[in-house]
């Protein structure tokens, strides 16, 4: 397939190769087991240039690039796409190091401008095979804010996409009934849909409610408008089976796109979720009846959703917000043990996040896509597998991180005392 096109591309590559000075950023990844969409792992050579994957062949001649990376016996996957607050949280218990929150805005709040590419969490996660993150906001109003997408390459500039979706949650609450919460969201949508006017008395509560949670600025209402226009989905963190049904109904009657998040009792309404073609972002390891909304939490959630044909993406819930987001691979590995097809489990931490949120040009190894690649020494979902190399936009990443540096500081023999302590 595509033989002619490939030959043409090869010619073009060779043409540019001779025409221009040799590109430093051209890499040939040779002989690795490459994870291809709808196929799984197959032995292929990958040619990367100017940040993109430009060729995937059984055999590409080594003379084409000075940077040949022997990947015999290695596993090459798209870089992991995680759901996290990476770059927005440094230390969980120190609010001054957290930028996911807002009291001023809710629906319109996008934390991505606060992104810190030098966070130690970014360094660690990059060294563990993560190439990009879907930022999770946590504003304190009715909506948590806007999801957006950021690459986590070395250096001061990162490519971003977004907003990807509007995050909120539905279910148990300490004050209003969940029924009231549903009424409110419907009224709010109706208000925005009918064209809001801050001067009208019966609508003024939406602008100037005394309680912050009921206050919506123009920016917030514009974000809701985007959901109503189907420019992005509403993303709802919800667990209880009956709540999931209500949210599905609401999305249908409001004619909006929906993504479910967490969904611990999703397995009880798997057919309904599947029929509505709504994807679910979840941690397969969430099997504890930790709240009255999750009494039917079970390890079987993931396989039941998977068997019903629901599109899934995984995160690792114990990552304390950001720090160990890379462990989504551990969740995916467990999902396999719990009955999910291997390729689908790996897709759930690579291509599915991109597909679910329509993130352009990433998540799969295909010609023309961004060269965001991770090279592993073994099965990427296994616990003892190590990351060997990471590319983001075709650029080979520095994988140094604070944990390796501390390890070295305390294990290397030195003559000097204390901070050069031997083990």
């Amino acid at each position, binding site marked *: 397939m595509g033989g002619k096109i490939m030959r043409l591309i090869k010619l073009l590559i060779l043409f540019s190769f001779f025409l221009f000075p040799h590109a430093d950023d051209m890499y040939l990844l040779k002989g690795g087991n490459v994870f291809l969409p709808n196929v799984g792992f197959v032995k292929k050579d990958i040619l990367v240039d100017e940040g993109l994957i430009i060729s995937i062949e059984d055999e590409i001649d080594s003379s084409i690039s000075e940077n040949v990376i022997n990947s015999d016996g290695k596993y090459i996957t798209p870089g992991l796409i995680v759901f996290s607050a990476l770059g927005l949280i440094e230390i*969980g*218990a120190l609010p001054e190091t957290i930028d996911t929150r807002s009291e001023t805005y809710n629906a319109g709040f996008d934390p991505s401008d606060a992104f810190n590419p030098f966070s*130690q969490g970014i360094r660690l996660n990059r060294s563990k095979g993560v190439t990009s993150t879907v930022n999770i906001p946590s504003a304190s109003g009715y909506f948590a804010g806007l999801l957006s997408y950021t690459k986590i390459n070395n250096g001061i500039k990162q490519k971003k996409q977004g907003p990807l979706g509007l995050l909120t949650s539905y279910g148990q609450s300490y004050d209003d009934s969940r029924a009231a919460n549903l009424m409110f969201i419907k009224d709010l949508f109706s208000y925005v849909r009918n064209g809001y006017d801050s001067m009208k008395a019966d609508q003024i509560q939406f602008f100037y409610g005394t309680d912050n949670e009921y206050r919506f600025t123009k920016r917030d209402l514009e974000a809701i408008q985007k959901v109503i226009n189907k420019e992005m989905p509403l993303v709802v963190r919800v667990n209880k089976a009956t709540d999931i049904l209500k949210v599905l109904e609401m999305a249908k009657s409001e004619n909006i796109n929906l993504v479910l998040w967490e969904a611990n009792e999703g397995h009880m309404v798997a057919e309904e979720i599947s029929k509505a073609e709504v994807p679910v972002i979840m941690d397969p390891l969430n099997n504890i*009846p930790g709240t009255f909304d999750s009494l039917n939490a079970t390890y*079987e959630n993931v396989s039941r959703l998977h068997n019903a044909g629901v599109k899934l993406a995984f995160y690792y819930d114990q990552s304390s917000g950001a720090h160990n987001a890379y462990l989504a691979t551990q969740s995916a590995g467990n999902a396999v043990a719990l009955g999910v097809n291997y390729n689908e489990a790996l897709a759930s931490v690579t291509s599915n996040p991109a597909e679910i949120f329509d993130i352009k040009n990433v998540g799969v190894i295909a010609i023309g896509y961004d060269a965001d690649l991770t090279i592993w020494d073994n099965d990427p979902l296994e616990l003892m597998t190590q990351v060997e190399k990471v590319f983001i936009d075709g650029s080979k990443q520095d994988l140094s991180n604070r944990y390796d540096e501390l*390890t070295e500081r305390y294990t290397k023999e030195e003559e000097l005392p204390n901070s050069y302590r031997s083990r």
Partner: protein
Amino acid sequence: MIKKLIVLLTIFILFGCGSDTPSIFKSKMESSAKNFEDDIHGTYASTYTPLKPENIIIRNATIFDGNGNKFLDYDVYFSDGKIKNLGVDLEVEGAREIDATGKYVTPGIVDNHSHMGVYPAPSVRTSSDGNEATNPVTAEVWAEHSVWSQDPQYKLALAGGVTTFHVLPGSANLFGGRGVTLKNVSANTVPDMKFPDAPHSLKMACGENPKRVYRSRGPSTRMGNVAGYRKAWIGAENHKKRLERDPEHRDIKNETLVGVLDGKILVHNHCYRADEMATMINISQEFGYKVSTFHHAVEAYKIADLLADEGICAALWADWWGFKHEAYDMTIANIAIVDQARGGTGCAIVHSDSESGIQRLNQEAAKALAAGRRAGFEISEARAMTWLTKNPAKSLGILDKTGTLDLGKDADLVIWDGNPFSVYTKAEQVYIDGALTFDKASNFMPHTDFDIGIKEWEEK
């Protein structure tokens, strides 16, 4: 829609623990708290009885014995609740045979840091019973008096191969109270779960948690924390003196502290920072007690030699970090560095402090093992298995009863459907005192009363 996401992180930010070596029982003076033996053997004694011990021989397994050894194609024989023999082609009459070709057998996992029962599921305010956060010194409270015997989480840990767990009070206080060691069995009362003859423990906590919880009344600083420990120990010394002239005198708080000074109660000390652990060791020297185990100890690798020299265990996560400042200096090689200190004499433990993590402690050990090898240590899988079995049993003072497959010990063991260091492996069967307590194939497992009437869907 729900306005505030309730961040449960605070639960594990809040709490920690500690442990000890059996040697301290042999040394030291007589207990001056005359009722102390009663705590273990009297009114509050364990009333646990095993489920239904069988006579079983497991054949052709790959065995990690918990002592750091690996045996291929080996048989394990147990009867009357005890390990009776290990070997090749054992000849045994009248035992049920289990073919474990391609499978692995290990001792039951021991988690020395759990809050199951005191922070049960569902997590609601009305059964959040792990921290008596009303005074920085609450040595008088006992976790066993908070444990909810119907917590639906025990069976989830059982499915992960956990046969023994140690429930600690939280880390809000300098002295959080006594911990309790439980067999992972379903029972209607707490004494029916208690590990027979297990020593009592005392939870202490360093650092951020106590000084945050008590910042308005004190202690509000780390030096305030240290003054608080020392004041309490001086009070315990005074109590001891008083007992010499007034042996009938009761003081519930000081009875716990004197139990520690007399070497009867094991100190489990939640402590993250290396410098604070060194200070805690100084305090133990001032008052003549021993720290069994530092818990969480994200910086244990910085003083791995000191811990090995002092014979103190470190109970650690594989990779948790960053949720507070004192958990910032993380290395995934922490467990391996502690283990390998002083020629491999360190005592490293993989603990959970998490109702989720406790279900997959074997996976946590795998990550720690991989990081240790990456740091240049040659560590075998069999050695890494000691982090989950022998060392935590040692830290709880129950190594003479469980934690390895030594002959005569409790037949607490797990049959895994593959290598337990693989993400794809599951516990297939779990035996406690020779009785089958979990069987994956037939979905045989205990259900607490809380589970009754909830499941609206069929479990496979």
